[in-house]
């Protein structure tokens, strides 16, 4: 019982030190709960079945991510508790000299961890339960569900899960502490604080050289993921810039303080002003001793920024794309004249399907009891055509070069053709620019930015194509923007618009029907949509190659995917952010006792409180800013790279998502900074 009392008093006494630890634990618990409770939050919501499926998938993924998050938090908690133990070495030394056994000290720590664990779990779950109500608003917003009636939901399963995961973490901390205590020597404990700090100094010339080399290497890594990104073809090559980036980041931190010191000490006027020399030295010694953690923190921040901004931008741009890329309600398409050969090479095709493929598009549709005239308006019907021409043929002399540069592209794919009059009809309906052609000309229409530059090379070489013994030349030297297939992304790899008489029905490949619903209200459209979806249940659908794409379908899929990516991004981003900020804060606070001595000296030689606070503020601010600034520079290129990879998703609202990321950064990272500053100020205060 005495032990319990002692441990409780210890916590209360050293609450200043524990504040950051406690804050981090509470935040960790709360976030863990919130993201695991999304499932129960959405139960009340009025969403469609397909959205419900996406939510189900999302919660499965989130709970897998939770395991990963638990690992990160576990490491963080062990790391943090190690710091706190170190701070209390002297206290343990005194206990030992007073005759307390190591086992008893371990037990003392056990009680402390237990009580902190219980308190943080309770508080964290409380905050989490409140936050998850806000979360349900966000979820409803993301999935565009009506939150008609608000009910307070508490997820017992998420609560249990949080308790189990954190229970395991605390248990690990206890084991870790016990091992730690049993290994330490009394003399080290007692003299832990007296170890005079040896200033780790690095040769300034060496630092400058290393800094320059690392900057060049980093620049090269930046180049690899941006300018030279087309050369990256397989996974192993992507590892190269990552490896170079990590290495150069480490060496930049290694050399930074030496370099900084060299520069600042040269600027005598600034250096010998007020407490500047003191502050500069403090920062440089801290960076010198924390190179490794600075690197880790910097990289974590980098990942956070990239993940958050990309995730948010995917969600934003996917829904934004739909207005331009899916301007009509519905699209039917069907491949004509399936051959024996085609059916054999594609699993699941049978003779019934081949029969169906001989029918017209309208016949197939009406075979499924859908009356196009009853439900649809603004109908445009047309065919697309193929000939023997493959992609490689349309690249002309560029083909050799392209094959070397991009060996994985499918050059053997058949090219698609469309009549000029058909395309102009489609263009009118879809709000695209209408085209005109001379007799011997063609136009290539594409919007997938991966293919456009390659296609352009072929056009620049004035590559001719031959259809029905006539030769056609490109009208423009670059692809024209456009599409015939509605989608949520820019996925048109390219088709050829040619004069009407260049094609005949023997070359037909697919039939298309583009239309709007007759209904104009939201409810009406939904009703038509239901009828369309019921076509799937019609027995004839199994024998037809008919494909139906609706705007609503695309919409639901894209908000679902967008929301999923956003939530996972948010979850990981916030956890990374918390971890890095907490490590920085602990590093800073763990030295506060040394700092206390130093600031006392400054007071004795007559420094004002104002001066001291300013010096402390600058010291902590710069310590927090360094990894952030480098992470931000990394992120500029990182986001460009993400952008390249995700470019099919579009990047229309990148700025907005970067702003959102900035807000997260400011709130969490800034919050940790502020707490660290206030705690440090409190610690160095003279009573």
């Amino acid at each position: 019982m005495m032990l319990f009392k002692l441990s409780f008093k210890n916590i209360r006494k050293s609450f200043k030190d524990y504040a950051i630890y406690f804050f981090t634990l509470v935040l960790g618990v709360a976030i863990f709960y919130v993201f695991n409770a999304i499932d129960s939050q959405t139960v009340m919501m009025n969403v469609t079945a397909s959205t419900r499926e996406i939510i189900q998938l999302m919660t499965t993924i989130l709970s897998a991510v939770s395991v990963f998050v638990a690992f990160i938090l576990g490491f963080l908690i062990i790391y943090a508790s190690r710091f706190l133990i170190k701070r209390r070495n002297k206290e343990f030394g005194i206990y030992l000299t007073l005759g307390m056994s190591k086992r008893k000290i371990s037990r003392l720590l056990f009680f402390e961890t237990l009580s902190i664990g219980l308190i943080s779990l309770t508080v964290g779950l409380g905050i989490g339960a409140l936050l998850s109500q806000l979360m349900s608003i966000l979820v409803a917003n993301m999935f565009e569900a009506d939150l008609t009636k608000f009910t307070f939901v508490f997820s017992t399963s998420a609560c249990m899960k949080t308790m189990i995961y954190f229970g395991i973490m605390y248990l690990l901390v206890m084991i870790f502490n016990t091992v730690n205590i049993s290994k330490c020597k009394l003399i080290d404990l007692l003299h832990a604080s007296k170890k005079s700090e040896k200033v780790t100094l690095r040769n300034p010339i060496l630092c400058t050289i290393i800094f320059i080399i690392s900057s060049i290497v980093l620049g090269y890594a930046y180049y690899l993921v941006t300018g030279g990104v087309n050369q990256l073809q397989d996974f192993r090559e992507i590892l190269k810039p990552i490896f170079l980036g990590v290495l150069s980041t480490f060496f930049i931190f290694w050399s930074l303080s030496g370099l900084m010191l060299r520069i600042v000490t040269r600027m005598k006027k600034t250096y010998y002003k007020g407490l500047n020399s003191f502050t500069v030295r403090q920062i440089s010694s801290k960076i010198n001793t924390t190179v490794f953690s600075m690197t880790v923190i910097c990289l974590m921040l980098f990942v956070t920024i990239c993940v958050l901004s990309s995730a948010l931008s995917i969600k934003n741009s996917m829904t934004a794309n739909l207005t331009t890329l899916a301007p009509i309600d519905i699209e039917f398409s069907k491949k004509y004249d399936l051959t024996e050969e085609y059916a054999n090479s594609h699993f699941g095709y049978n003779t019934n399907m081949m029969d169906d493929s001989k029918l017209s598009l309208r016949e197939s549709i009406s075979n499924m009891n859908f009356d196009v005239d009853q439900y649809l308006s603004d109908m445009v019907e047309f065919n697309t055509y193929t000939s023997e021409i493959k992609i490689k043929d349309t690249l002309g002399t560029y083909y050799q070069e392209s094959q070397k540069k991009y060996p994985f592209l499918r050059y053997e794919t058949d090219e698609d053709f469309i009549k000029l009059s058909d395309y102009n009809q489609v263009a009118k309906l879809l709000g695209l620019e209408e085209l005109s052609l001379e007799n011997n000309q063609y136009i290539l229409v594409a919007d997938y930015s991966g293919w456009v530059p390659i296609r352009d090379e072929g056009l620049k070489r004035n590559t001719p194509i031959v259809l029905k013994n006539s030769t056609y030349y490109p009208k423009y030297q670059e692809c024209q923007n456009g599409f015939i297939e509605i989608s949520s992304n820019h996925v048109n790899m390219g088709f050829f618009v040619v004069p009407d008489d260049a094609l005949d029905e023997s070359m037909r490949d697919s039939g298309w029907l583009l239309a709007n619903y007759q209904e104009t209200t939201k409810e009406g459209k939904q009703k038509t949509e239901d009828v369309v979806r019921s076509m799937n249940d019609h027995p004839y659908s199994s024998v037809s190659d008919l494909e139906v794409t609706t705007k609503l379908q695309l919409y639901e899929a894209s908000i679902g995917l967008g929301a999923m990516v956003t939530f996972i991004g948010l979850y990981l981003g916030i956890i990374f952010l918390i971890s890095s900020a907490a490590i920085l804060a602990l590093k800073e606070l763990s030295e506060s006792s040394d700092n206390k001595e130093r600031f006392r000296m400054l007071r004795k030689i007559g420094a004002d409180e104002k001066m001291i606070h300013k010096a402390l503020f600058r010291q902590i601010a710069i310590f927090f800013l360094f990894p952030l600034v480098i992470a931000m520079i990394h992120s500029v290129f990182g986001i460009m790279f993400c952008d390249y990879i995700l470019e099919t998703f579009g990047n229309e609202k990148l700025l907005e998502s970067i702003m959102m990321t900035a807000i997260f950064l400011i709130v969490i990272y800034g919050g940790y900074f502020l707490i660290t500053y206030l705690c440090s100020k409190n610690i160095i205060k003279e009573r």
Partner: protein
Amino acid sequence: MEPILSVEKIEKYYGNKSSLTKAINNISFEVMEGEFVAIMGSSGSGKTTLLNVISTIDRVTSGHIYVGGDDITKLKGNALNKFRREELGFIFQDFNLLDTLTAYENIALSLSIQNVGAKEIDERIKKVATQLNIKDILHKYPYQMSGGQKQRVASARAIITKPKLVLADEPTGALDSKSAKMLLERFRELNEELEATILMVTHDAFTASYATRVIFIKDGKIFNEIHRGNDSRKEFFDKIIDVVTLLGGDLNDAL
């Protein structure tokens, strides 16, 4: 001659009504310009408390302390810090050098917080470094220096601001006898050649014998006071020992 420091009937009490400790119990004395005064007493005699209240680190319960005519017991907040950085120089037992700064920067710091320009700082440091013979170690860090060197750097820091009064708290406490002797010689030079007024607290008779006057404190009161006059250091040392013997056994351990 004007008194640089005059202490008038100061008292310092610790604790509350039920258990009152009188750390300083009605002490008055004056220090003239250019004097080198040692305050001697055993641990618990109140000498460190005395130094703390003079250096404004601590406050008196009653009484007044005048430095150059100003009553420093009335100072508050930043005026206190201003007084401390402009009028006083400190030399501490444990040197109190900042371990992250070089000797040069440690000395420069006390000038830079007074907003002295970088150029003037450099000139003044060069001058004081020559006087204290620390020119060669200016670029070194405290952990690279010997105790004596650290103490000299600390002395340089204390006098570079040209303070009215240099306060030294057990300056030889952490030094071996050779370094201690060297430092005390330096103090005498500071005092005689640079005309620095020094007030030093010590429990060591040898250290005290370098002063021009020694004030003995026991139980928070002035017990005795002796002037060196024209005595040699050795003779003065013997006189101090006499008083110490009179004071009782508790100081003997210091010999």
